């Protein structure tokens, strides 16, 4: 068994106002593994993901990145985040920067690379996401799929230990989804450690090594991707049935 990159134990998050979004979630992510988190709206998927890089401060539980607890007040949150990539549902590219500058921003200002070094790294990752010809474009001039691939490149460039995908295809037109999924699948094949929150059940089954099904802030079912074909719990069966109806 490869080493555990990320370990989550009894994660809890209660929002101000008393909403208990996550009520004790535990799972491990191993080196090179891709984990898909699925579940209906409000089940706490995004909250779990954002707790991992502390965009949301968890109210309880332990998160360990390569054996070190990261949700303590003493932990250097900026250093931790630079080791955890994140891809957002709405891309969140920096609109005033060109594609290349979007990718190099973190390299230069967090990693402290020179412009030429950063450009070199950025060109490599942009080649991986197949966007070499758009390096001088502004995000406003890209299609949704291209934007999301730039966002993936931006996360990849930092050479993270794990990348978090927060519904990476939800904001895309159906015909643009393919290129993004292809890119993510490529990363999975290369052995990138990933956590993907997604509604694309088929994609989750294809790409993910393991599925975590969340319901009402708890892990309702967990297992290899094959559990999508044979869900054990009634809740997951109902969830999958409702997803199939939509498609």
């Amino acid at each position: 068994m490869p080493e555990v990159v990320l370990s989550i134990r009894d994660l809890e998050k209660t929002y101000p106002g008393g909403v208990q979004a996550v009520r004790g979630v535990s799972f491990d992510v191993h080196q090179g593994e891709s984990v898909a988190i699925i579940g209906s709206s409000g089940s706490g998927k995004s909250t779990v993901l954002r707790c991992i890089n502390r965009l949301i401060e968890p109210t309880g539980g332990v998160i360990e990145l390569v054996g070190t607890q990261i949700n303590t007040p003493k932990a250097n949150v900026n250093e931790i985040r630079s080791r955890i990539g994140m891809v957002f549902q709405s891309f969140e590219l920096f609109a005033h920067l060109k594609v290349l500058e979007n990718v190099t921003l973190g390299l230069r200002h967090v990693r402290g690379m020179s412009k030429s070094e950063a450009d070199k790294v950025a060109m490599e990752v942009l080649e991986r996401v197949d966007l070499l010809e758009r390096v001088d474009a502004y995000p406003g001039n890209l299609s949704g799929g291209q934007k999301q691939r730039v966002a993936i490149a931006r996360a990849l460039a930092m050479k993270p230990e794990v990348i978090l995908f927060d519904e990476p295809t939800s904001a895309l037109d159906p015909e643009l989804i393919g290129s993004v999924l292809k890119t993510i699948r490529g990363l999975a094949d290369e052995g990138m450690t990933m956590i993907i929150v997604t509604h694309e059940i088929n994609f989750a089954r294809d790409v993910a090594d393991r599925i975590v099904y969340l319901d009402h802030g708890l892990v309702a079912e967990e297992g290899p991707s094959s559990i999508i074909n044979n869900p054990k719990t009634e809740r997951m069966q109902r969830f999958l049935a409702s997803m199939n109806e939509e498609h």
Partner: protein
Amino acid sequence: MNSRRVGVERIFSWSALEEKTRVGILVSVFLLVAISPAIGQSTESGWDIAESSVDSDLNAAAVYGNEIWAFGDGGLMLSSSDEGMTWSTVSSTTTANFISADSAYESMAVLDSTGSVLIKQGQDADWVNIGTPSEGMTDLVLIGEESLILVGDEGAIWKYSASNWLKIETQFTQNLNDVSFLDENNGIACGEDGTILFTDNGGTSWDSRESPLGATSSNLVSVSYYSRVRMFAVSSNGEILASISEGAQNWYLVEIESEGYSTSLNMTLTSIEVVSGSKILFSGPDNYLGFSKDGGNKVEHNLIPEGVDTSFNDHAMINAFKGIVVGDKGVILFTDNSGENDQVGYEIPDYNNFGEFVEYADDMMLDGFKATVKIVGFGIIFGFLIGVILAMLKTAPTNLKGLVEGRPNVIIRIIGGGLIVIGINLFWNGLSGFSELGLDGIEYIFTPVGDSRGFAKFGLGIAFTLLGLLFLSNNGKFSKMKIGRLTLNPWKIRPLNWIATLYTDFFRNTPLIVQFMFIHFGLSLGMEIQDAYESSFGAIGTDGFDYWLLGESAFISAIFTLGLNSGAYQCETIRGAIAAIPSGQMEAGRSIGLTYMGTMKLVIMPQAIRICIPPIGNEMVNLVLNSSLAMVIGYAELSRQGRLIIAWTFQIFWAWGLVMISYFVVTWTLALLLRRLEEKTKIPGLGITGGG
């Protein structure tokens, strides 16, 4: 267009303009120059050439009764009885060169280069040689009908009285050049190495007077003892020395305003003539004549009539206006306005004529225009910086919980205890001062003015005490507080936001005109900054960059007031723009490991500033318009210049019209620049721009 432009070129580039526009601009500029009227006025010399019909050097001149006399080389004597216009030679008994002359007490005396003295007592009397006490004499002065003083080289002083020559023994050995007496007793002699000698007993004994610093090695060539409290001397290198103390004490060097406050005219001088308490005529070699109406502060260099090429040696003035000046090669010039340059072709302007009104007003308008642009420029930069800082403070998420969380509770409690001690101390300190103010009831609202330090202590004391209590009560739970029906969470307080809010509330709820007067007159901010600068970098001086920037205290106060005020308004605009940036941008910045400030600087602000260019432009235009209030603190911007023009011309409609047009030009240019800036910095996909 992909070429990158830098600096100003990003906003304005001549080559980027269309050809049509370029031609249009050139034609307008040409037309403006072509229709501006030529000025037909000129300045002429106030001196006229008198026909002397001699070509010997003339060295001395004197007014004697209703005649003027001039004396020159080879025993040459000339006299004029029509105020210097026509001259005739007078037969002389000597062929030596005359070097000095004086008339007083109905006598006239001349000194020649051999040291012989001739005296003439009465209009019809003949010249009488009264002897040759010594060679090397340089100047003589009459101190009575038949008594005179001679001064000369190596400190020689001779006195002639009761038909006897007496050598005055002194310890001075410097060469003396000139001597002048106020009356029979009081006199001053001057000479090399800044020598100034004074007598109050008719020249029997002399005391030395201290030469001003800077003139201790100057060669003082001429002195005039005009009145008990008006004494002037000049040095050969153009310095003007003056004393206004009885007994010729306390000499100082005149700072010559018209020479940039230098202490020298930068001209070689040979002689001065003081014709009233503050009116001085200067003469020197190389055609130099000068004139000052105010004791040397402003010196006009006289124009000299054409064809004159001489070295001027001596004046002889009949009164404060009429007189002559003599020079080498037989030159005699006469004047009836003390030599002041004549302005020919000037008329009394008729300000009911718009052309003449503009002729008068345009220079003042231009000065006001420049002054306005100057404060507006600095005000905008300053206001924008303050606006950005305040907006960052206002949006800063730092709250008390964030400050405390993650630190050991013991330390927090110790800090809390310390804060309480300091707070209560400050509180009582401030409060005890209040009782001495003698205020009553609601009057206590004015304590910030009556005892500002005390008030600050009082306020800080309360804040520190409450903060200390909160820290002391910290148990790591950061729970809310219930006071009656009120629920508070003091841990959510954002101190930076509080400070910024206090600032903006204050500046937005007081009138700008009062802020101007409070800051300039109340705090004397401009003067304080000047003093601080001068004490650390030396005097500001009267030209150069530091003078341009800091020379005027009203200017400094004005940019601070405008900047502080505009910053308070711009802050809200910028804060709005920051709020308009999707929160995901901050998350994205943070998720790649940037710090909060790093994300603000690299991600949020560059986008927010682009969004807020139009509303910030509004604020900047407001700032230009508000700058007119700087007139109340005496800053000479456009509105104040308008008032001054009205005071002179009484053309109210035209003057304010000119002022309005000038403001429009400033604000409109600014608006155009901002529009261009907005276009140049536009990013595809950021905001709804209506095309492009």
